[in-house]
């Protein structure tokens, strides 16, 4: 009996609210029912963000690249003169080459080491969860902060690497009286950031250290999507460990791997913080990248137009890379 009453009450309430709703139906509600309108409404915030933070600065930069604007003065339109001047300057050509070299080498090392790390992390071992979390550490620490630590580790005088090297170098190692390494005497160790080729090696090393977790974790996630039966099938088919990796793992994670590599390529290409903190482009411009050069031209020399032009040179280069890699992705049949 009580149940029936409750049910009736509920029905009454329901119909009452339905009537109220109908009377409140306004123009906005009707419009929002329309999927097209709703779609645009939902897109608007993201669209505004893109305009304000990406499209506007990009357009402004493009405009500045076409003027002779210096800090504090309005610029005049000078066409492509900034670009022509840059192409003609040695320092720009060095920076462009450095950028390509730095990006290709660093990305290649990160991809190779990242894959290796991912395969290791994909195995089950005690503390595997903790290790996986720990691997992410370089990724979490703010770049400037961790780079400052690198600056100390690579310091000409206080470098911990050189300290260890020196310690090992002049140590005599013997096992049961048998000398397997004699005392080689004193060694200074490389001037990590002070010599051009060591400096390039150092910034690549720091970049690899920082970028590795992203590769390792992305590859690890991809590895875990490979169905284990495929490995069983490959075992039965007679594949050794290496062949399983080559014929099963790699093809299976290729789509993810390509996206990761493209993404990292773009980010590495435009790297600024790391180089700026470690070398400021030196010694002798040997580690200048397009990003640091652009910064130097506009902020130090105050030549905003030229700086913007240097930065803009990255766009066509990256565009080509992205188009190439995405075309490949389409070709191997990823929808």
């Amino acid at each position: 009996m009580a149940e029936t009453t409750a049910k009736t009450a509920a029905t009454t309430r329901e119909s009452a609210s339905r009537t109220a709703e109908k009377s409140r139906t306004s123009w906005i509600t009707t419009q929002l029912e329309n999927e097209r309108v709703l779609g645009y409404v939902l897109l608007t915030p993201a669209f505004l963000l893109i305009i304000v933070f990406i499209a506007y600065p990009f357009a402004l930069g493009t405009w500045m690249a076409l003027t002779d604007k210096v800090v504090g003065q309005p610029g005049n339109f000078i066409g492509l003169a900034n670009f022509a001047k840059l192409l003609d300057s040695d320092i720009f050509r060095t920076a462009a080459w450095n950028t390509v070299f730095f990006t290709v080498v660093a990305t290649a090392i990160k991809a190779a080491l990242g894959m290796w790390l991912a395969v290791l992390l994909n195995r089950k071992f005690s503390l595997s969860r903790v290790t996986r979390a720990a691997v992410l550490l370089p990724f979490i620490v703010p770049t400037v902060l961790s780079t400052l630590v690198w600056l100390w580790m690579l310091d000409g005088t206080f470098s911990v690497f050189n300290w260890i090297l020196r310690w090992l170098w002049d140590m005599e190692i013997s096992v049961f009286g048998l000398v397997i390494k004699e005392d080689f005497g004193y060694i200074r160790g490389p001037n990590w950031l002070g010599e051009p080729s060591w400096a390039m090696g150092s910034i690549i090393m720091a970049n690899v250290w920082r970028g590795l977790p992203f590769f390792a974790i992305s590859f690890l996630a991809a590895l875990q999507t490979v169905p284990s039966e495929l490995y069983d099938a490959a075992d039965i088919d007679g594949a050794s460990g290496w062949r399983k990796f080559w014929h099963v793992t790699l093809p299976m994670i290729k789509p993810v791997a390509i996206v990761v590599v493209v993404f990292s390529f773009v980010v590495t290409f435009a790297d600024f913080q790391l180089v700026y903190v470690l070398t400021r482009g030196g010694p002798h411009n040997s580690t200048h990248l397009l990003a640091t050069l652009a910064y130097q031209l506009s902020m130090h020399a105050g030549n905003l137009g030229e700086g913007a032009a240097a930065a803009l040179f990255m766009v066509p280069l990256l565009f080509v890379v992205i188009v190439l890699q995405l075309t490949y992705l389409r070709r191997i049949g990823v929808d």
Partner: protein
Amino acid sequence: MAQILLKDLYKTYGETPAVRGINLTIDENEFVVLVGPSGCGKTTTLRMIAGLEHITDGEIYIGERLINDVPPRDRDIAMVFQNYALYPHMTVHENMSFGLRLRKLPKDEIQRRVKEAADILDIGELLARRPKQLSGGQRQRVAMGRAIVRNPEAFLFDEPLSNLDAKLRVQMRTEIKLIHQRVRTTVVYVTHDQVEAMTLADRIVVMNDGIVEQVASPQEMYDNPSTRFVAGFIGSPSMNFLPCKLTGNGSGLSVILSDGIRLNVPADREGRYRDYLDRDLTFGIRPEHLTEQRQHTNADQQDFSCQVGVLEPMGIDTMVFMNIEGEDVCARAAPKSVKNPGEDMLFTIDMQNMHLIDPGTDKVL
């Protein structure tokens, strides 16, 4: 094309035992089906034969060779997986030839074998496609093709048909049997479907809870199950089980199912059952041996009357459910002969197909 021997095979995952001591000899070119309920250890056993699972204890021989520590690739076996496990990035041809290419066979030999297998399986048209572009049945064929081209000592199948719809399953079942007749090889086939087991097997191995309940030919398994579990598992609908009492009736023995139902035991069984006189036992009879009243064809057929409970028409027969002393009993009757629910009906039971089970040991007597 070799004998496979399992000796005291054990497998435990951590603390959980999955396989608890299996002894089995699979003869050359024999088609053996492992069947049993979910979780009984069929897949585990098969994967140990394949070398995909470490053996906790016991020995496996293929031919004369002890293969406990031989990696899968050196065991010369091929396996068909439940969800096919085709390489998605390879074409059908590449999928089938992968194992041969790894073994560095000459190109024309690979070509020949793939073509031959494709002809047997009728998938010649599909060789250039990727698995994604195939139907379930076609994938199934490709998975079998991948095994056939290898020309292995033994084929292992793990529920290869369970992902197909009912109609295709029946069709592929026939086809597998046909292929086995053409490509004579030792086959170990895992399924949980007893019909599949009955139709395909030279010998059936019924497993339950990690052990082997019985090994026998399909007919033997049906006629003479050795345990209550096998009796209930093989046959569809499954055997009826009723508590009963075995008593003497002057000249011979009879079983008492209820006050009204007292059935005489065939004379040739008396020696077998005499030791169990006056004991509480379980009586088993298959539905097909419990029919509407018919003309008796042997002396051991007897009639009794019971009230009809529920009817389940199947077309060719109607399943008649009744209640005897609290137990549901199913009979298989000709559709025209059945009475309405609630009415009494006369049944004929063929006591030559009766079974008596010791409820203490679950062994069929």
